[in-house]
């Protein structure tokens, strides 16, 4: 049995978090920690070193870009892979750029949940 990966999901939309946690944990491959607060995510990441952080971009208080930058500045967290999840980019944008836009891993909220699960899967290969 493969090792269960720990995922951090950061988004201010709690409904979306609930949905993604449910679907991702159902695969049996992931343990998902949700938070709606970017700065809290940074703290937690330092303590718990997740295997992947999925970040919304457009959030109040601390936006996803800032969260990612803060993570990359710290010795403890700089190697944690980050996947941005946003409806700012379309499914087509993501497909065309093979998921990397401006050097960042991107997934679109315009895709299906299964698309996202596949994408996360591919991040670990």
């Amino acid at each position, binding site marked *: 049995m493969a090792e269960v990966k720990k995922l951090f999901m950061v988004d201010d939309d709690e*409904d979306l978090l*609930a*949905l993604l946690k449910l*679907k991702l944990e159902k695969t049996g491959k992931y343990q998902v920690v949700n938070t709606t607060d970017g700065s809290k995510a940074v703290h937690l990441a330092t303590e718990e070193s997740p295997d992947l952080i999925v970040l919304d971009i457009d959030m109040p208080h601390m936006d996803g870009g800032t969260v990612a930058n803060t993570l990359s500045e710290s010795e403890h967290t700089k190697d944690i892979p980050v996947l941005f999840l946003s*409806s700012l980019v379309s499914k087509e944008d993501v497909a065309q750029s093979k998921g990397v836009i401006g050097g960042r891993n991107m997934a679109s909220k*315009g895709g299906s949940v299964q698309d996202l699960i596949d994408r996360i899967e591919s991040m670990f290969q």
Partner: protein
Amino acid sequence: MKVDSSNKQKVLIVDDTPENILILMETLKNEYAIVAAKNGEKALQLANADPVPDIILLDIMMPGMDGYEVCERLKANDKTKDIPVIFITAKTEEEDEIKGFNLGAVDYITKPISPPKVQARVRIHLALKNARKMLEMQNEELIEAAKLKEDVDGIMRHDLKSPLNSIISLPQIILEDKSLDPEHAKSLKIIEEAGFRMLNMINLSLDLFKMERGVYPFQPVSVDILKIIKKIVSETEGVARTKNILFNIMNGENNITDDDSFHVMGEELLCYSVLSNLIKNAVEASPEGETVSITLDDKENGSISVHNQGVVPEEIRDKFFEKYVTSGKSGGTGLGTYSAKLIAETQGGQINLHTSEKDGTTITICLPLDQSQSSKDLGFQTDKKIATQQEDEETQLERLPPLHVLIVDDDAFNIKILEKFLNHPNIVTDSSENGKVALQKLDSTEYDLVLMDMEMPVMDGLTAVDEIRKREEQRHKGTEAQRDKGDGLSVKLNRLPVIALSAHDDPESRQKCLEVGFTDFLTKPVDKMRLLNTLLRFINTDTDHEAFKSSQSIEDELETDTRQLGEDKEDKYFVELDGDLRDLIPDFLDNKRTDLESIQEALGSKDFDGLRKMGHKLKGSFHMYGFTNISNICHEIEEAAKEQDEKVIENNLEVLRDYLDNVVIEYIGGN
């Protein structure tokens, strides 16, 4: 440190010699707020402060970063590039000056510093800067004003048309009440006419603009000029009577009879507009007690001459048809004759002026005759033929086969009007409020024709017709495969007539509609005759359609069960969701209702940025949960928030609420 810098203009002095800074400060401190830097780095930092300096005095010879480099960097930065830079230097060599000017400096001051000279130069360059800023602002205002004008034109064209819909349609409906008092009927006729006139004015104003640029999409049809002239004469008779002017309409050498008509190729509205203009002008220009003659002639082209005894003043004869030329008429715009010429030429015709003291004034318009109207190439024909045409139409209407028409429009009032227009014993109408509901109906019920609005929430006309065509193709493939097994004959693809109803009547919209699969295109507001004519065209000629119906009805029988199921569910929205989400959905829906309230609040306080963000968020949320249609509505809210379009947001919000209240969820799979 901030010393009364609020209203004084700010000068940045850059010099590595403290004495120089001191002298310049003393020279300028009474008039300006001063900041100073002793090196290039500090200078750049101060130049980037808020507010940026209004002018910079810059020493060239400095250790480290020299003045040239500072200048170069200032010019490379958007924030500082427009600040005027004056170089201060001991150098007086021409070459250095040129280098400085090439870098974007506006002037030079040479050392030793002369205070009055410095004061004068700083003052001049600040004045220049202010003047330039003023010009830029004025320019922006002009651009804005021009845009506003265009917007207003657009608004006029679209927004005025909606209320006109009622003004034009309701009288037609009320007039069908035979018990109506004749006086009231007459008043209603007047309201209707006025509505049409206003509609025509709106259309014409933009059309003229297009004609000037040669982009008017001219679509000639056969037009009975005589009918139009009679209408104009009856409209103008009141004014004519006050001046004791009589009208005389002639068919070549002969007087006109009731049976005559005169057909040219053109557009009815354009012909009406140009002739109305000429006849009204003739009445105004004619001396009292004279006759205004209108003579029709069909020798080569169709020519229409309007004559009055007045004389066009000599000084404007040569430029009679030019823009803004007018004479003797207070309040005249000088656009009447200009637009007459424009319209005549757009229709492939000509316009000429003949004026003299002896003969008075004759303006002649030539338009191409309608060749098809008569075997002898004559524009004239007796009324007999027309009478048969009208009769044909009436008998056609009487013998109308039983029709089932589906009206798709989100405006209940529009549906009501169309239903009234289609009030005929053989026509049964049905209606849907958007494309999606229409598709459901088309799945379950057989229709002969669909009238479809373009702009609707949930699913618009273009998407709906595209879907209808796709389904037809699929069905066609199915039937063809079946037939091929039998006799090997191929079956023609049959298409349900779907007529677009649109407020836009530009050729692009029309083109787009036909491309995507609409059978025809009707511009709103629709009047009864136009609607029935279109209906007849597609019902009577479409024999293929009959074949389509019979092949379809076989399939329909097979689908009877599902059809009946569909009928009961009309007002509900159906969505299939992942069964895993079952437990999440109640909370999700509750939260979304709360979100809609927040949107409503934000709308109330006109917080468009907030609206945009909320629309954006909801879009992602709904989409991921599987409510893909609703996700589009949220996208529309997001976009409308950018445009600050409250109405669109309000409408879409209403759709969302209705959706959340009426959604029926079916879970697929899961536990």
